[in-house]
């Protein structure tokens, strides 16, 4: 077990290093930050000076190595755009993204499971058919379109909810939360739905399929034969057995909720790390882009590692020699 973990961790480190290398090799094609840093009245001399100050005149492996050196000392560098330490900026922005991700994951899980169970039980009801059909929208419409539609309906036409931002936030230590104020709660509704809709649909369809499978199995028939109530059959026996794959999928999806919050954050001007990343691409803010990409890959690597370990724990057939994972 320990050997397996160590091997996976080492593999993960290699993955991270490769991600960083690829990222740095691509930054040249993103553009040149120097023009954004200098005003209209810059000279070619200024451009060369700033390029060498920032180390941009070095080949990318050197830039990458310097970045890694900094990271090893806990220093993610200084944002070109804001002139502030990247670590501070990320710490400032992370709560917004994590809260949004948590709320949309909650939304996706609760609603996904409820609707999944309902549509499985009332397989041919008109409401089930309606839910199943409309869930196709969640899968097929692009996120930004859903976001803009929601803004148009609920903010512009009905005026119930804010169209952008996070509302008022309250600071608890270094964490800023929008979940404790009325405007903050109102503000999170639309972005959370936008971000979680796809996951909700996915979970719903998964639960429904699993549930239908389980309801056909023998032990459910026996449970019914024993005269258990419908509720006990559906929720204590059937649902419990459908949750294993659901948990796996949800865990993996959590990573993508955080990583793909970029689009939702841009549409709703949600002040999280995704919006920060978009801004930093436009400005060619290399330290911010690099740190963001590294953090996201760390997150994915960690989630995958945990999932692998869970498999390992669940399935004894997976021996360390076969590696496991997927």
């Amino acid at each position, binding site marked *: 077990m320990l050997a397996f973990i160590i091997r996976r961790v080492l593999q993960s480190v290699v993955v991270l290093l490769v991600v960083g290398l690829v990222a740095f090799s691509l930054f040249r*094609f*993103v*553009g*040149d*930050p120097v*023009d*954004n*840093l*200098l*005003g*209209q*009245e*810059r*000279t*070619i*001399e200024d*451009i060369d000076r700033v390029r060498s*100050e920032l180390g941009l005149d070095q080949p990318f492996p050197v830039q990458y190595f310097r970045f890694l050196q900094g990271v090893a000392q806990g220093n993610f560098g*200084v944002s070109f*755009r*804001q*002139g*502030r*330490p990247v670590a*501070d*900026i990320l710490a*400032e*922005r992370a709560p917004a993204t994590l809260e949004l991700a948590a709320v949309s994951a909650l939304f996706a899980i609760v609603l996904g499971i409820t609707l999944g169970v309902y549509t499985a039980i009332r397989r041919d009801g008109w409401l089930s058919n309606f839910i199943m059909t409309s869930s196709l929208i969640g899968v097929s419409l692009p996120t930004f379109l859903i976001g*803009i539609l929601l*803004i*148009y309906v609920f*903010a*512009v036409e009905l*005026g119930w909810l*804010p*169209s*952008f*931002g*996070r509302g*008022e*936030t*309250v*600071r*608890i230590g270094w964490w*800023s939360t929008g979940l404790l*104020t009325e405007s903050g709660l109102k503000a999170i509704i639309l972005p959370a739905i936008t971000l979680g809709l796809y996951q909700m649909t996915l979970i719903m369809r998964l639960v429904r399929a699993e549930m239908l499978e389980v309801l056909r199995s023998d032990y459910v028939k026996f449970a019914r034969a024993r005269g258990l109530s419908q509720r006990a059959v559906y929720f204590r026996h059937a649902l419990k057995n459908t949750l294993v794959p659901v948990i796996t999928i949800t865990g993996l999806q959590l990573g993508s909720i955080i990583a793909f919050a970029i689009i939702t954050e*841009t*549409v*709703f*001007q949600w*002040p999280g790390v995704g*919006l*920060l990343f*978009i*801004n930093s691409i*436009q*400005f*060619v803010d290399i330290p911010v882009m690099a740190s963001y990409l590294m953090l996201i890959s760390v997150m994915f690597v960690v989630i995958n590692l945990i999932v692998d370990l869970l498999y390992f724990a669940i399935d004894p057939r997976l021996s360390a020699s076969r590696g496991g994972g997927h």
Partner: protein
Amino acid sequence: MNKLTIALASAIALGATTAQAETFKWAAQTDPQTMDPHAVNSAPVLGFLNNVYEGLVRRGKDMSVEPALAESWEPLGGDGWRFNLRRGVTFHDGAAFTAEDVMFSYERASSEAADTASWFAPVSEVTVVDDFTIDFMTNAPNPIFPGSIANFMIMDKGWAEANGVELPAKDAENFATLNANGTAAFRLAERQPGLMTVLEPFEGWWGEVEHNITRAEFTPVQNSATAVAALLSGEVDMINPVPVQDAGRVAERDGVDVITGIEARVIMFGFAHQAETIKYADDAGQPNPFRDVRVRQAVAHAINVDAILQTIMRGAAEPASQLVSPAMRGYTPALAERPAHDPDAARALLAEAGYPDGFSFGLKCTNDRYLNDESVCQAAVSMLAQIGLRAELDAMPVRTYWPELREDNFDMYLLGWSPGTFDAEHPIRFLAATPNEEQRLGSWNFGDFSNPRVDELLPMIQSEIDDAARQAMLDEVAQILQGEQAYVPLYVQPLIWGVRDGVELTQRPDNFFILRWVTINE
């Protein structure tokens, strides 16, 4: 600092003021990246900080230079300017304003660490005469110097020293990145980079208050559709800009209005004047036809600017004939006509130049820098095709565009220019003068246009005190540039702001949003 207390206090303040009409909320695409007035020389920063800091002089609603921290100024002999400072001015923290603060700010803003240093390139020496008099000596007579430092903002020496911000932060943050202490009508109440910046009126301001704002909140909203939604739903009182394609729809809505004006920025096409050969498309390697003035004139005649403005700009922009707009000082009214749209004349010019069947070449364009820039280029490509010029369009984001142009990777290119000094001399220095690194000339003249008479006139214009003589020389340069068709000016870019009904404000051609000109009627 107790952050929780601040958050609670601001939450209470928010709750208390949202009911009042005088809270003004506005949104723009870019967040000012710093609160330090000397750290970067960019329009979002300088425009925002004009509400917090003040210069010796400032620009009025019509861009004219007017007194601010200096009550008056006069030329000294010919090689400098004396500024008589306003008395009784205090900074937001209560400190008194004196010539020492100007001296300190000059040293700070002209230091190596400051991006504003180039404003002071003509300055040879600054001397404090007394507490309220300061002299700026220049290397040569400089008639436009006071106007050229309208964005040079004065910081309190004592405050800067107490907080260790004697120099702008170059590669780390410092106190002045997030805090401000100016003399202007508004003080910085709250700063959350990228989220929200709050200004409140400064009770001790020296000027006469025209606005009725008690609190102003700025939020950057990057996605323009979201900004429009925020305006329509009444969450913000003003947005800048409204996308051209949404302007009509916004104007039709009840409760909101669209304010259109003319920006100082002229959009134009430039050429490779010196390159031996064409670099792109089928004719790559062939001799460069753009070296011939007739070919450049043919381009000018081929482009139907009126059609571009009608279809792509929805009538919001105005045609341009020169490198500056008519609102700028030194504009030449006699050359207000741009070459007529005349494909036949254009074909004749091409035939005369030896290209009866046209040729192909590469056109470089931005796709995120100017309003609808890529569409303008696409329209131009089809117009050029009508006279046989087959342009291969390459549109790219601005972050890769300038490096391409610096590498001379173009045959023809799109450029927008907004003169920082609001004077016709500015584009001559940057776009028309023969590039010369040492003298800091022609640094944006990517196509290497070169004309000895223009180079000769430029220093004379820069040091001519007499307005009539100066204008005569500016007229001559404009005449040469138009005759040589050094560039093909297309139009002056519009400013399109969205405003809630009942808000009155002033749109300045430099796209600066000045809060003290805002009144809310309700």
